[in-house]
C-alpha cells in the first residue's frame, strides 16, 4: 500500500470516554432514584443489582457471542458459594470476598466455556444445562461445605473499607453494590468495543467469516466465558455478602432460565438491554407478586408474550432506534 496516499484526518475516538461517563452517571442517577424514593426496598434493589451482574454476564456470551446457554447460573452460584464459604471460614473483608467471587466465577466460566463452546446449536444448549445441573447437584451433595438444601448461612462480612457496616436497612449493601455495578459496567462498555469484543460480535454474525480473517474461534469464546464468569462471580459474591445466605436457588435451572428471559426482554447484545431487562422484569415481578401472589407468573408470561410480539429484539431496540433518529436529525440540522 506504499503507493496509496494516506491522509491523516482527525479521528472520532473509537472508544470515547463520553459514553462511559454517560453510562456511569445514568446508573448513579437510577441508583439515587432507588435510594431516595424507595428507602424501604433497598434489600430488593440490592438483590436486583446482584442479578443484573448475572444478566450482564449472560449477555456477554449469548448477546455478544451467540452462545446458547441455560446453565449460566452456575457461574453466579459458584461465585456466591465461594464468597460465602470464604466468609464463613474467616475472610471478612467485603472487597476480598468480592475478589474470591470473581476468581471462582472466572474459573467456573473458563471450565464451562471450554466444554460448552466446543459445540453449536442444540448440543451446546444441552451441555450448558448439564453443566448447570452438575453444579446444582454438587452444591446439594457437598452439604458439609455448602450447607446443602438448608443453604449456606452465617455469612457476616466486615465493614466496607473498614468504615461502613452492613446495616439492617441494606443501605451499605445497596451503595456498595451500586458502586461495584458502576465500575463493572464502565469496564464492560470498553470491553465490548475493544477489538476482542468486536470480533466476538463478528463470530456471532458468522464464525466462518471470522475464521477467514485469521480468528481462532474457540479460544476467544472460552476467554469470553471466563470474563462472563468473572462478572457473574461479582454478582454472586455481592448477593452472598448482602443477603448473608447462599441457597441452592442461586445455581438452579430456574435462575438460568429467568435471567435468559430478562435478557431477551431487555435486548440481547446490548449492555443497556441487559440492565433494562433486569430492572423491568424484577420490578414487574416484585409488584405483581405482591399484588397477586397466586397468578403473578401468568401476568409475567403475558408481558413476555406481548414484548416478544411487539419488540422481538427487546425493549432497548426501539429506544436505540429513537436515539439514532434524533442523532441523524441533529447532524442534519
Amino acid at each position: 500500500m506504499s503507493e496509496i496516499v494516506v491522509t491523516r484526518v482527525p479521528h472520532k475516538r473509537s472508544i470515547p470516554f463520553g459514553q462511559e461517563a454517560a453510562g456511569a452517571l445514568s446508573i448513579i442517577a437510577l441508583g439515587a432514584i432507588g435510594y431516595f424514593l424507595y428507602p424501604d426496598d433497598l434489600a430488593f434493589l440490592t438483590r436486583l443489582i446482584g442479578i443484573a451482574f448475572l444478566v450482564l454476564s449472560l449477555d456477554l456470551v449469548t448477546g455478544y457471542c451467540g452462545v446458547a446457554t441455560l446453565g449460566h447460573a452456575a457461574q453466579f452460584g459458584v461465585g456466591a458459594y465461594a464468597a460465602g464459604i470464604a466468609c464463613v471460614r474467616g475472610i471478612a473483608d467485603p472487597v476480598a470476598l468480592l475478589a474470591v467471587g470473581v476468581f471462582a466465577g472466572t474459573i467456573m466460566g473458563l471450565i464451562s466455556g471450554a466444554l460448552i463452546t466446543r459445540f453449536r446449536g442444540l448440543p451446546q444448549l444441552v451441555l450448558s444445562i448439564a453443566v448447570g445441573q452438575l453444579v446444582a447437584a454438587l452444591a446439594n451433595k457437598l452439604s458439609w461445605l455448602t450447607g446443602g438444601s438448608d443453604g449456606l448461612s452465617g455469612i457476616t462480612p466486615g465493614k466496607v473499607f473498614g468504615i461502613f457496616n452492613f446495616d439492617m436497612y441494606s443501605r451499605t449493601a445497596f451503595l456498595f453494590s451500586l458502586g461495584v455495578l458502576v465500575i463493572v459496567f464502565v469496564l464492560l462498555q470498553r470491553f465490548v468495543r475493544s477489538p476482542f469484543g468486536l470480533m466476538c460480535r463478528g463470530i456471532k454474525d458468522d464464525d466462518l467469516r471470522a475464521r477467514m480473517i485469521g480468528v481462532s474461534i474457540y479460544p476467544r469464546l472460552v476467554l469470553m466465558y471466563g470474563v462472563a464468569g468473572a462478572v457473574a462471580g461479582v454478582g454472586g459474591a455481592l448477593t452472598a455478602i448482602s443477603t448473608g445466605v447462599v441457597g441452592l436457588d442461586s445455581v438452579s435451572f430456574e435462575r438460568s432460565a429467568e435471567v435468559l428471559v430478562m435478557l431477551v426482554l431487555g435486548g440481547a447484545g446490548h449492555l443497556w438491554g441487559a440492565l433494562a431487562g433486569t430492572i423491568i422484569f424484577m420490578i414487574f415481578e416484585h409488584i405483581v407478586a405482591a399484588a397477586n401472589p397466586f397468578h403473578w407468573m401468568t401476568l409475567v408470561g403475558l408481558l413476555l408474550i406481548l414484548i416478544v410480539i411487539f419488540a422481538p429484539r427487546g425493549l432497548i431496540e426501539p429506544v436505540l432506534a429513537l436515539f439514532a433518529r434524533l442523532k441523524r436529525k441533529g447532524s442534519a440540522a
Partner: protein
Amino acid sequence: MPAAPLDIRNLSAGYGPTRIIEGISFSVKAGDRLAVLGRNGMGKTTLLATLMGLTTRHGGEIRIGDQDVTAKRTSARADLGIGYVPQTRDIFASLTVEENLRTGLKGRPASALDEAYAMFPRLRERRGNYGKQLSGGEQQMLSMARTLLGKPSILLLDEPLEGLAPVICDELMALLAKLAATNEVTIILVEQQIERALDFASSVMVMERGRTSWSGAPDVLTADRALVDRLVGVGIH
C-alpha cells in the same frame, strides 16, 4: 508482510466426498498477478476456497514460500498472510463500517484505518453505518479494505467486480493496479470480466471442469479472440 510465492502441486478438493477440482498445479512468484478464468461452475471459487482451507482436500500440496500450509486451518492460513475477499463479500452485517475495519487490523494501531479510508473515501463517509446498510459496491469495498488492512502477502479475490457499476469497477481495478505496482502482495484474481482481468494479470490460468485447461501469458489471449472463445466460451468484452 512482504509478498510471498505460492506453489500448488496436484491439488484435488471439493465439498465432502464430491470432488470439484482435480490435479491442479501452478506457481505464482512473489508479487505476481494470476488471473483464473473459466466458465461458471468450473471450480474457480472452489480453488480459492481450497487455498483458504474452506473445502475438503482430497490430495495435493499448498506451499507459501518454504512453508507447507496444506494441513493448516483457515485461521492459521489467514495469520500466515493469505487474505481472501470472497464473492459473497463476507462483511459483518451487525458491525459498523469502522468496526468491520477494526476487526481486520490484526494488531495494527487504529490509525491504520486511514489507509482504508484513503483507498476508499466512500467508506469514511459511511463509517458509522452498519454493514447491512451498505450497497453491494460499498460492501465490496469494505470487504477488500478490511482484508488489505491485515497486510496480506497473498490476496485471493473472487469476482470482486460482480454486480458493481462500471465506474466502481474502474475504481477497484485502478486500486488493484496500484496495489500490484507495489509488488508487496501476490494476487490471484478470479474474474468474469475477461478484458479487465487480462489487462491486470501477469499470468493466466483457465479452468475447465475442475482442471487446468490452459495457462500462459495474458497477451496470448488478448491477441487471440478465437482462443478465448474456445477456452472461456465468450469473446473479450
